[in-house]
């Protein structure tokens, strides 16, 4: 009656048990499975043996003590903690992301005050690269370049300063020696820059918000065109310096051509050149002075024997003897001081200090400051 031809050929109990306990090789397993596919008897045997094993298991296993409802949720803590951490990170990043946006609004307002028409930064940067003679574009590019200057190490600051000044530096003499050479007043490069400045009536106004915005751009890899140009030019200059033999100045025409190619630095050093025009031997760039704080100076200004310097921490130091002795000036301004400069006033030189928010304070002696 039964047409199944396999009834008399079955794996023995040992093989079926080994199959159920996964104790057979792959080939034998396939063979047994193939047999079970067509043999309902062996399938039934396996199911029943399995049922018996399951019935045996609770009888032999000791009862586990009750662990309470929290035990069932013990593995949920891990993803919950990870989720909370991720949420905290997102909130932090979001807050950081939103904070500079307010500064951007402020920057636009200041730009409107300083210049006649606001220009988007990237557009301005591109414009600066293409049309360096345009006043608005030059000013914006100057902001970009200045940003680069502010955020770099003192060595880079010194090198960038040297890119717009005379380049008598010997190769390998270091950034600080270059910075000292910046004090040399008149070179062909400086006169070139003065000419550029005269073409650009808009006064450079340091805008920290722009710095912050551009720093974000740099971090995200979207560095503006002008910043790239500055960097490339600086590297070119470094190469030129390295090629120059020891004790020999770099020819002036090299510096001129470099400055002509570099639109942003041309505008970024307008303050210094303006001071030069006013007859003040002043420099607010990176300085080789080692300040009492042990930190490098990010902004220095010199008026005869008097030097004012701001270190990386924002502390202001004053020297009356051309840097031989320093004294710390008590803070009379808000925020972190980032820039100091000197202007020619009616009664003599007036120092101006700018904090990171862009507010300014003035002082005649460098010790007493009043808000502007």
């Amino acid at each position: 009656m039964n047409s199944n031809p396999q009834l008399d050929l079955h794996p023995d109990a040992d093989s079926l048990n080994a199959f159920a306990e996964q104790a057979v090789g792959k080939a034998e397993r396939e063979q047994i499975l193939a047999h079970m596919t067509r043999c309902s008897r062996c399938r039934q045997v396996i199911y029943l043996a399995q049922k018996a094993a399951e019935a045996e298991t609770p009888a032999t296993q000791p009862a586990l003590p009750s662990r309470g409802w929290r035990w069932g949720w013990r593995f949920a803590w891990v993803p919950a903690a990870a989720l909370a951490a991720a949420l905290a990170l997102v909130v932090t990043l979001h807050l950081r992301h939103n904070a500079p946006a307010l500064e951007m609004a402020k920057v636009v307002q200041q730009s409107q005050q300083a210049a006649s028409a606001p220009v988007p930064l990237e557009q301005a940067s591109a414009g600066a690269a293409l049309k360096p003679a345009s006043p608005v574009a030059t000013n914006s590019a100057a902001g970009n370049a200045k940003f680069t200057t502010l955020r770099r190490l003192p060595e880079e600051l010194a090198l960038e300063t040297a890119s717009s000044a005379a380049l008598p530096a010997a190769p390998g003499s270091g950034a600080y020696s270059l910075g000292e050479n910046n004090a040399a007043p008149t070179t062909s490069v400086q006169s070139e820059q003065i000419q550029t400045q005269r073409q650009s009536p808009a006064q450079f106004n340091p805008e920290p918000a722009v710095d912050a915005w551009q720093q974000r751009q740099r971090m995200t890899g979207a560095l503006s065109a002008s910043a790239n140009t500055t960097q490339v030019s600086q590297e070119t200059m470094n190469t030129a310096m390295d090629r120059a033999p020891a004790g020999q100045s770099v020819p002036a025409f090299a510096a001129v051509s470099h400055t002509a190619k570099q639109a942003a630095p041309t505008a970024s050093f307008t303050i210094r050149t303006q001071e030069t025009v006013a007859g003040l031997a002043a420099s607010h760039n990176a300085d080789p002075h080692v300040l009492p704080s042990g930190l490098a100076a990010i902004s220095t200004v010199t008026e005869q024997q008097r030097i004012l310097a701001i270190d990386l921490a924002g502390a202001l130091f004053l020297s009356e003897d051309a840097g031989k002795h320093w004294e710390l000036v008590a803070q009379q301004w808000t925020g972190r001081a980032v820039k100091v400069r000197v202007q020619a006033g009616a009664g003599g030189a007036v120092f101006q200090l700018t904090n990171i928010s862009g507010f300014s304070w003035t002082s005649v002696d460098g010790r007493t400051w009043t808000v502007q």
Partner: protein
Amino acid sequence: MGITTSQPVEESAVTGIDAVPKAAQLPVQLNQLLNELWRESGAAAYGLKQEEFIRILLRVGAAQNYGLAAEATVSQRQQAGFLRGLRLADLVLAKACAGGHEGAWEHFIAVYRQPLFRAATAITGSETLGRELADQLYAELYGLKAREGVRRSPLDSYRGKGSLMGWLRTTLAQRHVDHHRRTRRELPLDNLAEGHEPPAANSKPGKLPAELLLLAKAVLEALEKIETVERFLLAAYYIDGRTLLEIAPVLHVHEATVSRKLHRLVDGIRKQIVKNLLEYGLNKQAVQEMLGADPRDLDLNLKKILQVSLTDAFEEKAAL
């Protein structure tokens, strides 16, 4: 206990394998391994001599070609791996019991009697039937059955691949299924209940329309292409009516995996049927109409189709 246990039997007579090399003929490394296994197994406690133990192991290995295909050549490393994978303690106990060792039987009863009874109860679903089934197996294990004048114990067929308890459960299940099938065959035809399988295979319907013949052909070809595991899945789920929870342990996967596999399988078969029909020259509309046909109109016995494997038949005969 009033039961005479079976006497030790001639090994070659049990297995039919005469060409088991003696210990002195073995390679040194294999001989060392066998000696080491003999010490680990505790065979001496049941009076099993070292030579006898080695012969048992070599016979078990040779009977299965050390777990490899029949025609494969076995290296010493493969031999060692196979021998180390055996359940030596269980194997020694089974062989000692089959050999009639009193101490081995005492140990066997102490360890396995209650679990065996529980397993039989679980298999039969009745304590009375379970006790009856367990006692019957005990009688067989003692070697009450004799063949050619020699008592034989089913324990002699245990080869140590799986656990001895698992082997006992499987043997119980085999006994129960065989008993059930025998007694079912003895039922008069009038008493066949609704759930019993009707003799559908021999029914000869009238001549089918050409479309249905094409559909039947497409179904047959689609089913022929599925793999062994898938065939097993279909048989277990649709023919045996097993649940996913029951099927999963057999395939050593989670029941959710079984469910996914089943869905995928059914979808795949349906697509294959459509593909076959399109290849026969039918258009899509005709195929869709054809798939709406009543399956009862088809001359197909899916049980038969599924249970005919394309792979080689399992050649090993039941041990008993």
